[in-house]
């Protein structure tokens, strides 16, 4: 038994309660310090747990209720390196967001700290939990805190609408998860992931297992904002305060994907061992569709935060495609993309926050040339935006290259170009916006871009001495992910373990520790030539597309592009009824396809 896993949840949650309880006694700065200390502790514990778990999985049975005769009677946290690393990233980004908001937000800070800490604890709990219903509890807790944080700017209609759409779509996703849990429980009489997986491997009734998998996976995909469950995301992320967005975009979205990967490899992998490809292909197709649509939608925005929101959708798609390959390299690639993207996307949102504070606008066209003479901001922005495209050995490159390897190993050579192009599209839109804002390049008007929003962002704190270093730190960390010695090998080893269902089950239910190979060396392995070429090509493509986007109105071609652009925008209507309709369509589609292919 290790004492670390419960602390990752207990420390931030207890700190949240303390902040509320002492609100009228302690001065605000002391409360901020409590919150910052709690987030820092969470991050540090996450790192320690990751290093510990590299030597072997770490388990904690709450209440000391160890399983009896293979029947789990309590709830467990199981830390593997991937989950622990995610928890560390959660703690780190929440820490960054709290420090940033210390200089950025002026009002209602107590409630902000409280909700951020609750969200932090919930995300850690979700990442580590080994119990299906417990995962649902953390999912809901994360959601409840996140809805309120989205509506933080209550004096404007945009944030409120974003929060409503967020709450309703994710709420329904949660109900689907519960129905899926009820199905699994009815069949297996268990809530522990390992135990359900064990029982489902033996039992028949395919229909039930297929429907349960559909509901649980689709519920998590709502959180991960995968097409067609993604519509709420841009509404919410466009309006939440920048530090909140940094956490949402950096980890909260991706955590839904961890949920999908976790339940697939602990619960359903055994039941569908014979037709894995049919399960994976659906995830893979959803991933590719999400990546391409996210990239295209990002390109059509002029509201910078909305553009960033769609670039998050795009990268979530890339990660899901990596997971959908159902191979260790693919999963490792997704994890490395997650890490680099989490840091870079957070950095971009934080940079946007500084731009809002200085220039009181988030509109690319309005900001044309206004941010000239800000070399540091410009460097952060362009660096992070290029890093998202993944030039050789920068930013997302290493994750992409692992996914490339997995794709070619499974004979899917068509996949890498699509993913690289999607990433280049998202990157190009950000580069275009950067060129307009920081360099003053490009046309003054572009009717292809989504119409301007009416709201005006409120004035913000502009203590650049705090804001800029924090932002720079995150961006730099994101850029160097690809040259961390040994990272790809170690994520791959971790992914290999993550996918090993029988070993996981016997470890959890019978306490037999799995045998692991020695730790991977801290070596820098060269990527395949293909990946280097792809990375180089994607960067060039992103730059070219950005240039084209800047001067497109003068080059013509609007007539061809206008109708599809308008159709895409019409789908992203902002009406909650439409969103729930798409959610239903998506679930019916996924379930229908699996019903046909897996039966």
């Amino acid at each position, binding site marked *: 038994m290790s004492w670390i896993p419960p602390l990752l949840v207990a420390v931030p949650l*207890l700190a949240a309660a303390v902040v509320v309880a002492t609100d009228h006694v302690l001065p605000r700065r002391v409360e901020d310090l409590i919150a910052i200390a709690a987030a820092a502790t969470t991050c540090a514990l996450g790192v320690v747990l990751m290093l510990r778990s590299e030597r072997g999985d770490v388990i904690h049975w709450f209440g000391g209720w160890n399983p009896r005769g293979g029947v789990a009677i309590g709830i467990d946290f199981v830390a593997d390196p991937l989950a622990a690393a995610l928890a560390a990233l959660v703690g780190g980004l929440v820490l960054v967001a709290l420090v940033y908001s210390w200089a950025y937000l002026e009002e209602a800070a107590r409630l902000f700290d409280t909700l951020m800490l609750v969200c932090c604890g919930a995300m850690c709990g979700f990442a580590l939990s080994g119990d299906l219903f417990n995962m649902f*509890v953390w999912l809901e807790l994360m959601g*409840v805190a996140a809805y309120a944080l989205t509506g933080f700017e209550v004096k404007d209609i945009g944030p409120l609408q974003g929060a409503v759409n967020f709450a309703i779509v994710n709420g329904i996703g949660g109900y689907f998860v519960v129905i899926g849990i009820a199905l699994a429980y009815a069949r297996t009489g268990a809530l522990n992931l390992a135990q359900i997986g064990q029982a489902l491997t033996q039992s028949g009734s395919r*229909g039930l297992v297929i429907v349960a998998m559909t509901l649980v996976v689709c519920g998590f995909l709502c959180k991960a904002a995968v097409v067609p469950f993604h519509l709420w995301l841009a509404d919410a992320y466009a309006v939440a305060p920048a530090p909140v967005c940094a956490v949402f975009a950096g980890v909260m979205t991706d955590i839904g994907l961890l949920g999908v990967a976790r339940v697939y490899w602990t619960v359903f992998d055994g039941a569908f061992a014979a037709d894995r490809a049919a399960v994976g292909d659906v995830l893979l197709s959803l991933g590719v569709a999400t990546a391409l649509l996210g990239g295209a939608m990002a390109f059509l925005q002029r509201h910078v935060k909305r553009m960033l929101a769609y670039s998050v959708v795009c990268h979530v798609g890339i990660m899901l495609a990596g997971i959908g390959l159902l191979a260790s390299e693919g999963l490792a690639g997704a994890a490395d993309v997650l890490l680099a993207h989490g840091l870079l996307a957070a950095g971009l949102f934080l940079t946007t926050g500084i731009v809002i504070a200085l220039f009181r606008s988030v509109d690319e066209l309005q900001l044309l040339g206004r941010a000239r003479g800000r070399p540091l901001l410009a460097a952060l922005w362009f660096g992070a935006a290029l890093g998202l495209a993944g030039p050789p050995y920068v930013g997302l490159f290493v994750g992409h290259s692992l996914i490339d390897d997995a794709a070619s190993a499974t004979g899917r050579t068509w996949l890498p170009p699509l993913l690289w192009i999607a990433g280049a599209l998202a990157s190009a839109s950000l580069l275009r916006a950067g060129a307009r804002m920081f360099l003053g390049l490009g046309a003054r008007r572009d009717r292809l871009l989504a119409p301007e929003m009416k709201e005006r962002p409120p004035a913000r704190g502009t203590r650049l001495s705090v804001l800029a270093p924090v932002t720079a730190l995150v961006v730099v960390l994101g850029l160097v992910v690809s040259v961390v010695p040994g990272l790809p090998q170690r994520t791959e080893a971790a992914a290999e373990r993550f996918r090993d269902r029988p070993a996981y089950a016997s470890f959890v239910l019978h306490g037999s520790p799995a045998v692991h190979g020695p730790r991977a060396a801290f070596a820098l392995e060269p990527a395949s030539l293909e990946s280097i070429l792809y990375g180089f090509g994607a960067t060039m493509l992103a730059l070219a597309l950005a240039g084209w986007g800047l001067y497109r109105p003068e080059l013509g071609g609007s007539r061809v592009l206008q109708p599809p652009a308008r159709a895409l925008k019409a789908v992203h209507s902002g009406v909650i009824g439409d969103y729930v309709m798409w959610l239903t369509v998506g679930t019916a589609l996924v379930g229908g396809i699996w019903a046909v292919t897996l039966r």
Partner: protein
Amino acid sequence: MRIAAFVPALVVLFALLLWGFAGMPDFGHYRGPYGFVLERIATPERHVTNVVNATTYDYRGFDTMGEEFILFAAVTGVVLLLRGSSGSRRRADDDVRSDSIRLAGAVAPALVILVGLWLVAFGFVTPGGGFQGGIAVAAGALMLFVAVGYRAWSTLGDERLLDPIEGLGAGGYAVVGLAALVSGLPFLTNLFGPGVVGTVRSGGSAALLNWAAAIEVAAANVILTTEFVEQYIAPIVRRRR
């Protein structure tokens, strides 16, 4: 357009659900191990007769910690949304002048609060527990509002009083969990032994969790209703002036 795409999808989803449900054991013939194991061990090992509460606060007590914080976060969110938008609190002059209402107002809330406390206290013996009792206590407090008027109520519903109580309820749950961890046992391990079957003293430290939950639920519901009542009262007060 929306209906045209939605209705077929809903029909497919409904069919999928029916198909999946067909694989469940027949209604009334559940045979899973989890619940049966708990039923067999809860009373002998933990001296608890209400197995549902043994599950809620002991075997799956960690779920309930998450649940308390869901309530906690929701209250924080509602306060943020409603208080942030309508400014600070106002005090209204609406003293209740009917004697019969005053009398009823003194007796009824006391009764409801007593019932609530009873539900909490005997949660490990008979149906009831922290959540049900907590809401009943909050309901009693709410009835007090009807009886004594808004001004007295807003003193009771003062955030300087309620916020610490709420923090105590949610934080207390985590503290009980940590106490076990500090003594070298897994988080939320039941301390103090099993107690006596069929009495208030059954359940060990899970009984503390039950009370922490009750405090959290009662405070959270009073804050919630106060915030909503504020929304209702504020414009009326303004009109009268």
